[in-house]
């Protein structure tokens, strides 16, 4: 089979993506830095770092810590605010031939809505609402753990969005299926998961927390089995498409998520270890399809049941 005969295109909410690989929010900035290493135009989509209404300074340092097979981060959603994003980052992104997904954060429901409203008139493809960041006191995960609040905020944000809406779910919950259903009931066009799992590291020599924020979000290959399980459970619970992530390092990891039910996948922590990780994931998926004589990636979505 030739590469040309293989279909990598997937569709979410009527939007076609040239392949199922995007970046995990917060691990790729707005693409600028990684554009030195990879051709952004090859990405299925580029998902940006979380953007808020005003600039956010984020948490004190240290903000990251290495853990066994993973890492903790407590960046605290530092970002330049929606104005700079629209004026500087968006034009940069538009110079590439890829879909743009903007990750949105807020401290209050109103703030989420305001950012979403601002972006509704911009040339972006989808919005991803981050209600699952474990590293900020207000907003973030507070909205994302209780199904009732998930549904409520989804409904509310949906009112202000002219763009298809992805709700990004927290894995720090008892029943991910319930939360997935709540997002669906609220009108989400898709869900993405998993955000990071809340973790902690103590420096026993200093007898102190390693992170200034005490806790941080655990990501990387260490969490992949939990992420795959949650994607599987979410896929069993809802009809809307799923963007799966959590520890994807290569094509095979990505395929695990797709077979568990994800329509797209996002590459996060892997970028830090290998700046070309996104490209290698795309290549790995393509090589797998070729090797196994599969014409269309869509055949594999949720194929393991």
């Amino acid at each position, binding site marked *: 089979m030739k590469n040309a005969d293989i279909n990598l295109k997937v569709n979410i909410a009527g939007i076609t993506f040239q392949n199922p690989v995007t970046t995990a929010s*917060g*691990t*790729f*900035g707005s693409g*600028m*830095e*990684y554009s*030195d*290493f990879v051709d952004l135009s090859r990405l299925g989509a580029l998902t940006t*770092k979380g953007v808020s209404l005003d*600039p*956010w*300074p*984020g948490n004190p*340092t*240290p*903000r*990251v*810590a*290495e853990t*066994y*097979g*993973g*890492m903790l*981060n407590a*960046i605290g959603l*530092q970002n*330049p*605010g929606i104005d*700079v994003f629209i004026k500087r980052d968006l034009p940069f992104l538009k110079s590439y031939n890829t879909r743009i997904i903007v990750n949105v954060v807020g401290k209050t429901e109103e703030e989420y809505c305001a950012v979403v409203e601002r972006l509704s008139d911009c040339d972006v493809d989808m919005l991803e609402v981050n209600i699952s960041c474990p590293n900020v006191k207000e907003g973030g995960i507070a909205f994302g753990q209780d199904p009732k609040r998930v549904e409520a905020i989804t409904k509310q944000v949906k009112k202000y969005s002219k763009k298809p809406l992805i709700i990004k779910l927290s894995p720090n919950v008892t029943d991910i299926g319930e939360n997935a259903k709540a997002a669906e009931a609220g009108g989400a066009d898709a869900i993405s998961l998993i955000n990071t799992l809340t973790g902690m590291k103590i420096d026993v020599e200093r007898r102190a927390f390693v992170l200034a924020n005490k806790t941080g979000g655990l990501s*990387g*290959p260490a969490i992949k089995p939990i992420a795959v399980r949650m994607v599987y459970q979410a896929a069993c619970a809802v009809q809307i498409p799923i963007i799966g992530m959590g520890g994807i390092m290569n094509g095979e990891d990505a395929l695990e998520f797709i077979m568990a039910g994800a329509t797209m996948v996002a590459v996060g*922590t892997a*970028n*830090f*270890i*290998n*700046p*070309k990780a996104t490209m290698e994931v795309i290549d790995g998926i393509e090589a797998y399809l070729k090797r196994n004589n599969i014409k269309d990636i869509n055949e594999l979505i949720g194929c393991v049941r």
Partner: protein
Amino acid sequence: MTLAVKRTNKVLKNEKIAEGIYDMWLEAKDMASFAKPGQFVSLYCNDGSRLLPRPISICETDQSTESLRLLYRVVGKGTEEFSKLRPGDMIDCMGPLGNGFTFEGTRALIIGGGIGIPPLLELAKRLSCEKTIVLGFRDETFLVKDFEKYGSTYVATENGNLGTKGNVLDAIRKHRLTGDIIYACGPAPMLRGIKEFAMESKIKAQLSLEERMACGIGACLACVCKSVKTDPHTNVNNKRICKEGPVFYAEEVIL
């Protein structure tokens, strides 16, 4: 467009030169030729359980062999792994990263403390102005001979083993050292002291800072320091040490 690349480099040499301090030379095509003093590389562990890169400053470059010298202290699992590499072994490496020192002034005062000393060697080598070098150690010294080639070199040791007993500022005061530009790298308390000294003495100072990193290229916002003014990139009072730094003017940053 930065000139950074990621590639697997061959270890040419890796020797212990003082207690817990290793001296490594890497074959580093592309990287060696682009490297500027004060820049660093991200070294990756071969062991898959350790994912994040270890930022290590470029100590010296050899353009003829396109190789890089790195001097590092074994402090944890990653540097311990590095210390076991033998010539011929391979190691993943990304760089050169960060901005490096800006050459300016006519009388440089180069101040290094402990494991902050290595990046100053390539600087001393390349700076063509008058150079006074001050190196501070806890007890055992290293690299002193290398520096002596490039300028008058003063040493301070905490226990008084060699040179002035005390820290680099004690040596500076004792010998009344001065200059019109300070280049400094070392532990945070030393840098705070130097910032104060520079302000008092009205000498411009470039300080090389450290912070935990993840991406090493400016994307993840892990490695910020507080800046006095709003940073044009981040639009908040944070500067990325891996990208806008690691070298900052003393007056730009809050230590």
